[in-house]
């Protein structure tokens, strides 16, 4: 495959064959080596062949092989000519990250660190057989899917201020849960308000470095040593089922002939099935917003109980990194509405965009990039350049480089816990095997991922945080 170097961090797969647009990859030489090890670039090229794709398909620095679309991929489609694809969003719809600030410093919680984490582990359900709240009924679940985080606020989980600091204000208006299958609903009912397993986690973190004092302050990050809480999870079984259901319905309706990869299956945006998928996807997005809202509320409760107060535990932001949306972007100098797919990519809107709340409009939205278990995570600010360079998108995390199988062969969960403890990081988990699979060595270097984002200009570094306590689902 031809790969043209544009500059130190930008590579291009020029338009060829069935490609309707070129593909741009943002990566350092080192990250590109990782990316080349699997089918990422091949998949990105497939995306560039889809109907109605506009300008360029983008690959983020943390990209790795996905299903249909690569993970770490961004593509936009014309509203009339273009398509919407469940594989372009991913199975975990609105997998995302929420970040809470606190007024506490590392020293304040030093003595209570273990207790805080143990209490959070008790309060936030994770793993099979743990339900979020007393079994919901079907009607309540449907209401959650319509109202998202608003439902959680109305039911006492947090404050209206949280909604302001949530992407889409915690509710995608396009949701219509009438298009959810019975199976999706059944899977969603017991799991609302649960963390889930796999790469999902909850961390108590401390600020280890501030790169941009002024922007950090706007975000509510005041000093090194300040304690934050990060929650990384998604729409659980409900979202997974929506993806599977619509991949199947689209296959049955349109057939799979000519598709290089079955999970590239798609429907015209304005078609009946395209609209039904979009409305169901929005319902799953809302479910995930409500989910993170409830978990955030329980974390505040634990701080109030253990530390005596949860005052000042404001939300910094909540971002989704698996989603399709209708947004306005500049194509040939003309602003037009398009359907953007961000799969394993975070929105990174710069100053002035109307979608971001007043409180952040002068500095750009907070972009939250979680690292792997036990390593640093980063807070960036969205940029105007990102709108030009990547349709307002940047990376979403570290991205795996080693299989879970290999990680299990090489690492032991119990040993990882000991190593983390030596570094002053507490760990609570539901399974040792899960811990081994998530060993930090199995992931790309998140430091390098955010450095590239910063250098390219698609997300500017604001602060670095490191964990002091990790809960793994």
């Amino acid at each position: 495959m031809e790969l043209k170097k544009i500059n130190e961090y930008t590579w291009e797969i020029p338009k060829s064959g069935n490609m309707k647009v070129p593909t741009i990859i943002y990566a350092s030489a080192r990250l590109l080596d990782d990316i080349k090890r699997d089918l990422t670039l091949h998949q990105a090229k497939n995306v560039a062949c889809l109907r109605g794709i506009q300008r360029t398909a983008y690959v983020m620095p943390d990209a790795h092989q996905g299903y249909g679309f690569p993970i770490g991929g961004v593509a936009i489609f014309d509203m009339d000519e273009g398509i919407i694809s469940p594989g372009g969003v991913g199975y975990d719809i609105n997998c995302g990250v929420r970040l809470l600030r606190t007024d506490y410093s590392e020293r304040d919680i030093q003595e209570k660190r273990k207790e805080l984490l143990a209490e959070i582990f008790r309060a936030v359900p994770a793993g099979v057989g743990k339900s979020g709240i007393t079994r919901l009924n079907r009607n309540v679940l449907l209401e959650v899917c319509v109202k998202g985080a608003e439902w959680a606020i109305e039911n006492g989980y947090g404050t209206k201020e949280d909604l302001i600091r949530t992407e889409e204000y915690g509710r995608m208006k396009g949701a219509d849960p009438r298009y959810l299958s019975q199976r999706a609903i059944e899977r969603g009912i017991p799991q609302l308000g649960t963390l889930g397993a796999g790469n999902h986690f909850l961390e108590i973190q401390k600020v280890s470095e501030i790169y941009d004092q002024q922007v950090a302050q706007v975000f509510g990050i005041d000093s090194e040593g300040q304690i934050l809480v990060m929650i990384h999870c998604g729409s659980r079984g409900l979202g997974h089922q929506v993806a599977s259901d619509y991949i199947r319905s689209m296959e049955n309706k349109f057939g799979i002939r000519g598709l290089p990869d079955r999970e590239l299956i798609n429907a015209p945006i304005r078609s009946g099935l395209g609209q039904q998928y979009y409305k169901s996807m929005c319902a799953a997005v809302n479910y995930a917003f409500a989910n993170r809202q409830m978990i955030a509320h329980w974390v505040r409760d634990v701080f109030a109980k253990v530390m005596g107060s949860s005052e000042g535990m404001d939300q910094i932001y909540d971002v989704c990194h698996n989603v399709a949306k209708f947004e306005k972007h500049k194509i040939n100098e003309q602003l037009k509405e398009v359907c953007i797919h961000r799969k394993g990519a975070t929105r990174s809107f710069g100053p002035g965009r109307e979608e971001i709340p007043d409180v952040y409009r002068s500095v750009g939205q907070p972009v939250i990039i979680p690292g792997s278990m036990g390593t640093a995570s980063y807070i960036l600010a969205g940029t105007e350049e990102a709108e030009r360079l990547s349709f307002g998108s940047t990376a979403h995390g570290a991205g795996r480089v080693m299989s879970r199988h290999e990680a299990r062969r090489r690492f032991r969960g119990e040993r990882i816990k000991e190593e983390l403890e030596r570094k002053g990081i507490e760990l609570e988990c539901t399974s040792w095997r899960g811990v081994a699979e998530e060993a930090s060595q199995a992931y790309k270097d998140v430091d390098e991922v955010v450095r590239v984002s910063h250098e390219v200009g698609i997300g500017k570094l604001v602060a670095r945080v490191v964990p002091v306590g990790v809960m793994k689902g």
Partner: protein
Amino acid sequence: MQKYRFLSHTADAKFQAFGKTLEEAFSNAALATASLMWDPKKIEKKKELQVEIAGNDIKQLLNCFLEEIIYLLDSKMFLLSSAEKVRVKKEGSRYSLKALFRGDEYSNKYEIHGNIKAITYNEMKVEKRDHFMVQVVVDV
């Protein structure tokens, strides 16, 4: 004959399951899928569920069949020990499948060590040579 084996995959889990018949390969694929979340050998066979699946082609059938395991876990907390009496039928261009799932409802005595998000079509294969082999990548 080996029932199944796992292969290397960067982000997710990839396995091949084998059988003298297509049905046996499907049944072993169900074991491989369950083994990503719990040890099927340690699950008591206290409950039986009759499962009926349809698919437009053999891969869709396999996809739906394995998805049933996740669906039953999430909605009914059912842990699969074995998929027995698997019968695959072809009617015109469509496929249908019947099977008996045996296992138990989740309780504290069982250890769950993993989670599956979805069964994918990525690198999926259903092949017949000396015996049947199905290959599946699971999003975990």
